[in-house]
């Protein structure tokens, strides 16, 4: 019966082979395009989305963009957040080419480093030495990174980038690596600006360059 029907030209049976073929082709196409789109979306997720996806991050870039001015000012300055996450700053930046400072530094210089795209690691002075050593592994010798103790922290460890802050209690917290990975050389409005050539001295009083003849 089946074989006989097949030879009747006016009523052909369903072409399962053809249907199967095009279903397969369709599925393969959808899979290929879908995977390509997913992979590029995942790899190219914007750096600020990667930052705000971290539980310990506070996003000031979205909530308070008016704080993030770039003017050069001399003398002591006050910042809305401690430690500073951006705003007007001293004309000299703190050297941020993988520098590990053993004493507090001036926010006026550090903020200029944040403008250049650096990530500033700060910790309470009573943080155990092994925790400090673990933090320093993220910083020492790494360009666009600098680290210092800070006397006025509301968390054991606080990382600052221009417009963003991460607070954690443990130097082993994986958010530290993720924050640095997303923010370093991306946060900060001055693309391509350097980290060497800055102030390498510690102390919380900003150092104004002494102009000629004054």
């Amino acid at each position: 019966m089946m074989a006989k029907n097949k030879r009747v030209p006016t009523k052909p049976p369903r072409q399962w082979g053809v249907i199967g073929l095009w279903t397969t082709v369709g599925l393969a196409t959808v899979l290929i395009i879908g995977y390509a789109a997913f992979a590029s979306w995942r790899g190219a997720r914007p750096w600020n989305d990667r930052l705000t996806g971290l539980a310990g991050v506070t996003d000031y870039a979205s909530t308070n963009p008016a704080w993030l001015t770039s003017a050069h000012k001399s003398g002591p300055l006050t910042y809305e957040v401690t430690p500073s996450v951006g705003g007007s700053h001293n004309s000299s930046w703190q050297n941020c080419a993988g520098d590990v400072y053993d004493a507090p530094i001036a926010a006026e210089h550090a903020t200029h480093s944040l403008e250049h795209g650096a990530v500033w690691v700060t910790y309470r002075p009573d943080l155990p030495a092994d925790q400090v050593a673990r933090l320093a592994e993220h910083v020492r010798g790494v360009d666009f990174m600098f680290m210092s103790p800070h006397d006025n922290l509301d968390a054991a460890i606080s990382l600052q980038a221009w417009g963003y802050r991460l607070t954690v209690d443990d130097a082993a917290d994986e958010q530290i690596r993720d924050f640095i990975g997303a923010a370093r050389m991306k946060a900060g409005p001055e693309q391509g600006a350097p980290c060497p050539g800055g102030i390498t001295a510690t102390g919380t009083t900003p150092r104004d360059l002494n102009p000629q003849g004054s």
Partner: protein
Amino acid sequence: MSETRSASPSWTVIAAAAVALAVGISIGILYPIVRAPGDTSAEAGFARSMSTHHAQAVAMAMRAYAASGDPQITAVAFDIALSQQSQIGTMQSWLRQWNLSPTSTEPAMAWMSRTGTHHGAPTRQMPGMATTQELETLNQATGTDLDRLFCDLMIRHHEGGIAMVDAVLAADPADEVRSLAEAIRKTQQAEVDALRDMRARVG
């Protein structure tokens, strides 16, 4: 014939899958090429002329960095020279990725005329550029003469750069271009303010 076709459907399926794969790969390869800014686009014009514009700022800043005795001047010169040289690298790599030449035979400002932000005939002179004579004077000057001239030339140069930035932003550029253009505008405006303060101090 129909016997052969129904006997080996797996081969047709494999062939069709191969075609689907080829189409997918082609889309993947062609999409960025089709999407890339063209030779006469505002993006390409901006990348080329801003590279040239930045190169002159680097030259002037290197002179001030090497010869000024004023630590505020040398600090800002150091920042300008290194930042702008790095940005030249960024803009040149765009042109390479877009498969475009780093140079063009068009007048330098033709792209700006097309954005409607630069009036009059296209010119080779970019806004804010120092003349050969002014560069010569800068290279001979010393002391406060050098500091004064550097501030004057760099303020004008930065303001010209901001005009070029506004022109490319008016053309609704690709994301990477918009991001750098906005960064340049913000940075150079802050530096213009700082340079004005220094210029007032030098007297």
